[in-house]
């Protein structure tokens, strides 16, 4: 299926899903939980662009995600703008940060890159903690409007936005995957030196990957203040976002755009169910155990179990 056709078909699917769920489901909790699952699909897809396609493991998801959220907070405090504008703004700011991170971590490989991303997340968190305008360590309260611009409550509106954002990010991921950019990124993942020698512009491609990945993560974080109504650094920069955005693509499968969706839906749903039925600390335990289990047993994820056409090469 060509890129254009995929965008059209997936848009139809997303729109149908949106109409169906908005029309049929009355229980408000579905939209709360659905928002979270969709947000994780976006995070996992965005992570996978840098992690699965390019082979650079990013532990700093929280930085981009929380920066997107705090961009929305800053806009909310300065001038009231509609949420879609905040999403775009969050994407731009996080994209710039992604670009900066790409430059800073130019020459780092493997675990050094991962630790540098973690360092960046902590530095970003410390900066926000010390910035009083957005509340600092106390956090900030954001009043959620009663009704969305369209029919229905505000949560349904955020859910709809997140569904559209999910469509957008999945379409982008697939477009990248099937394009020359994707081939270049895969080449970087398989053997960066050989790719350089073969003429792949690794620096430029890596910067594109970090920027796109960061921008999408920032976009997914922008509606967060309205969703939670109370934002503080320790929850928005929480390491659980990093673990989830690593675990979901790894469990789903890192080589294709389908993997993050599978992983995010599976893990996100399990976590929501566990939070409600058992306890909220336990769901993180489940994610960690699933991650460890899958990484040991099925290194290529669920996609790899179903169609083992892409085997990771050993001994690199």
């Amino acid at each position, binding site marked *: 299926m060509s890129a254009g056709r995929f965008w059209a078909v997936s848009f139809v699917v997303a729109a149908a899903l949106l109409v169906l769920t908005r029309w049929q489901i009355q229980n408000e909790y579905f939209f709360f939980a659905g928002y979270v699952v969709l947000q994780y699909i976006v995070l996992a897809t965005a992570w996978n662009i840098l992690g699965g396609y390019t082979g650079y493991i990013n532990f700093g998801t929280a930085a981009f995600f929380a920066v997107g959220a705090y961009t929305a907070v800053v806009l909310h405090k300065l001038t009231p703008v509609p949420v879609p504008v905040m999403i775009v703004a969050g994407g731009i700011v996080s994209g710039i940060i992604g670009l900066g991170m790409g430059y800073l971590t130019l020459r780092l*490989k493997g675990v050094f890159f991962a630790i540098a991303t973690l360092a960046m997340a902590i530095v970003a968190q410390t900066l926000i903690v010390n910035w009083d305008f957005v509340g600092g360590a106390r956090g900030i309260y954001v009043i959620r409007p009663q009704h969305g611009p369209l029919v229905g409550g505000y949560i349904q509106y955020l859910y709809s936005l997140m569904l559209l954002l999910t469509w957008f990010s999945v379409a982008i991921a697939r477009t990248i995957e099937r394009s020359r950019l994707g081939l270049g990124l895969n080449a970087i993942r398989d053997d960066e030196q050989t790719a350089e020698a073969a003429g792949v512009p690794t620096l430029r491609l890596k910067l594109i990957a970090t920027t796109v990945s960061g921008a999408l993560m920032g976009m997914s974080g922008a509606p967060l203040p309205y969703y939670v109504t109370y934002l503080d650094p320790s929850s928005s920069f929480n390491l659980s976002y990093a673990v989830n955005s690593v675990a979901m693509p790894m469990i789903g499968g890192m080589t294709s755009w389908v993997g993050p969706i599978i992983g995010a839906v599976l893990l996100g749903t399990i976590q929501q169910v566990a939070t409600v039925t058992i306890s909220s600390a336990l769901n993180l335990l489940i994610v960690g155990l699933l991650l460890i289990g899958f990484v040991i047993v099925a290194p290529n994820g669920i996609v790899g179990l179903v169609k083992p056409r892409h085997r990771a090469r050993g001994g690199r």
Partner: protein
Amino acid sequence: MEISLDLLVNAIVAGLLLGGFYAAVTLGVTISFGMLDIVNIAHPAFIMLGSFITYAINSAFHLDPILIGVTMMPAFLVLGMAVYQIYYYAFERRGQESIQGLAFFFGLLFVGEVALILVFGVDYRFVEAAYIGPSLHFGFVELPLRMLVPFVVALAMVGLLQLFLGRSFIGRAILAVAQDRLALQLMAANPSRVKRIAFGISIATAALAGALLIIIQPVEPSIGRDYIGRIFAICVLGGMTSIPGMVAGAMLIGIAESITSTFYGPSWSPAVAFGFLLLALAVRPAGILGR
């Protein structure tokens, strides 16, 4: 902002004492990451485990925390060897240690923290010992015993390990496997056995480091996350394989954190270690680091 001399000197002294403790914390990672190339990002989880076991035994039986730490070490040695065995079978044999191994340890870090939360809750826990509270005074310089005692114990552990690595047979085998694994195989030694022992030793140091941690400050499970950056920053600064370099790096970061905390406020200190790390990684890329 005027910098009063005694405040500065006290900050530096506190930083030195803290640095000694950081050396104990990073010692295990110098072995596992610097020498064995195993990205044990879950090291803080083992330290927290050590801290909480120390708390549990101390509050039940009122034993001295350092004594508890030392007696935990054999158990942690076995634990470390078991973890390495899993890591070896799952990843090293398949040659996939880079991404999957990292994810494995990341998951382990998380599972460790959440398990501690489920068992102990999120309250701050502390231990009671005779030396927590009093401090020595030399003029205007204050040496709190709760920092001085861990400092001494930490440096003793580091020194003992350095001796062990240099003098004993297994220690030299560990240094050998760090330098050239193939050559070790040609010498008819089993590298994975040596690595297993080395990894066990690295986790055993985490046990004592955990006991020292809970002497210095009250702990709760998520503190481990702050230490990831510090540990790897010190390891990288120290040149990865060199233990004396690591101690110097630990002192440097300890002093930097202490001065930042004293003069700019403690809310900035988490960024110090990570900032150093980013600087070190940006300026000296992975290939040149002391190997």
